[in-house]
């Protein structure tokens, strides 16, 4: 089906850049300035002791 060399070529080219691109996207999302408020709110929101679903 695929020989060894093809797989190695795919992993060293596409695979490498795919993982680099993915890590850049993740870091950009995590450090995007406007997301800061959402994350801070999310981290604090679970501490609110309100044991009912919101209407």
């Amino acid at each position, binding site marked *: 089906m695929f020989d*060894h060399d093809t797989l*190695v070529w795919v*992993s060293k080219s596409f695979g490498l850049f795919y*993982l680099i691109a*993915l*890590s850049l996207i*993740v*870091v950009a*999302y*995590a*450090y995007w300035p406007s997301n800061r408020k*959402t*994350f*801070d*709110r*999310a*981290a*604090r*929101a*679970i*501490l*609110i*002791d*309100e*044991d*009912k*679903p*919101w*209407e």
Partner: protein
Amino acid sequence: MIGQLTRNERQGALLILIALAILGLAMAAVGRDDPLGGQGALVMVAALAGLFGVISRYYAPEPGPDRVSRYYDEPSKVGIIIAMGWVVFGLFIGDWVAWLLVDPNLTFHAAWSSFGRIRPVHTTSVIFGFGGNALIATSFYVMQRTSRARLPDQLSPLFVLFGYNLFCVLAVAGYMMGITQSKEYAEPEWYADIWLVVVWITYFVIYLRTLARRKEKHIYVANWYYLAFILVVAVLHIVNNLAVPVSFGHARSYSLFSGVQDAMTEWWYGHNAVAFFLTSGFLGMLYYYLPKVAGRPIFSYRMSIINFWGITFFYMWAGSHHLHYTALPQWVQTLGMTFSLMLLVPSWASAGNALLTLNGAWHKVRDDATLRFMMVAAVFYGLATFEGSFMAIRPVNSLSHYTDWTIGHVHAGALGWVAMITFGSIYASVPWLWKRDGMFSPRLVEVHFWLAVAGTVIYVMAMWNSGIVQGLMWRTYNDSGTLAYSFVDSVVAMHPYYIARAIGGLMFLLGSLVGCYNIWLTIRTAPQVAGRTASEFPDAAPIGAPVLQPGE
């Protein structure tokens, strides 16, 4: 439990159970000359027991329309009780296996109690029985609170919970009858595997439906971890268990893969079972219960997101480190080793994130054994992930592989990390779920904590020693260039460590029994109404007026 179902849902439950009973009967009839018949009978008995349960409460009053103003916690309550049952059973079998290695006569000369059968009974009971039920129970709890939405219906969560336990019982009973497909952590045969796919997809759909109903815009990070656990376990389970049964009347099946492809598929599954069953799901638990009990938000929410993607994408490639020095191509082994080493970054960042969250709450760690369970879990998580990355290095693996060091590593993770975070989360949830002021006896939580810590340390130390001694004895040459020790020499040298390990395991088992007793007393004791404050009684808090925790 049945009283929580609407009339339509009770009818749905009856239909499912009747279909299941017929399926069991068919299995018993078609497989009457095979162990499959016994498994079919088991399915039928379970379905009939369920039918009696539903029928006996069929005419109980239906829940009112006001049920939607509460979270649906019945499956979480039942799940926690079942998980505690499994942990006692699984640890008992585990300690039996440990004593069996001290004295091989302890099988009592029965086939079902031989090492090869009760060892998977132990692993399945603790990983899937205890771990799986605890994950299902806490995920329903956490997903509702963090989404601020009730589960979409009452029947499907119960189907998932009981269906999953039927799978576990079929698996464990099957091993004792000699049924196994001989894949580690994937021993159950094709019919049980198909059943688990049905249950698991239902679980996944419930999670998505609840998230779709969420009132919080942002999905809290614990849900990401839980969702990764559910989704990836489904993928792993389906691919690794692709097999063709001998016939519909036989329990035996043959894998679609053979040779080294089979080995690679199995360890791609096996290591990702560690990653997504035993890590991702329990990190979900950690990211909810630890901040909640500590009363402080997670130290770095950003770091938890980056770690999530790091863990998710690195773990996928790490499995081949289980196959160093085998017929697997060298470059695949190197790939597995490299990704295992990279995994140390998100793993330690997660452990560090958990411990840094406790900064400012160390007095609570000192006073409250529940939080201390979680703290120790984070420490062992850091320890076990470091050890795992280290053991994946090929030359280190040449010493550690096939020795007790592997068993020590697995138990540092399973006892020190998975069981500790679970006990911590259970001790936190039980008073919240049953609306009690706290656990019946904080002192017994303390006793459980110290038994668990001492048991884990004794176990892991014994296996480190025995594993390294074993590995060194197997590779020591004498002057004439032949092996200095026979295999039996190394077995004799293990004896004292095996006794120590069995004692450590016994302490861990005793701790979990103390936990069961304490949970039972907490549930049985009526809530004390006098002296309650609003923050201790969440239901009393008016909507829109959140009660703030001291950490805010």
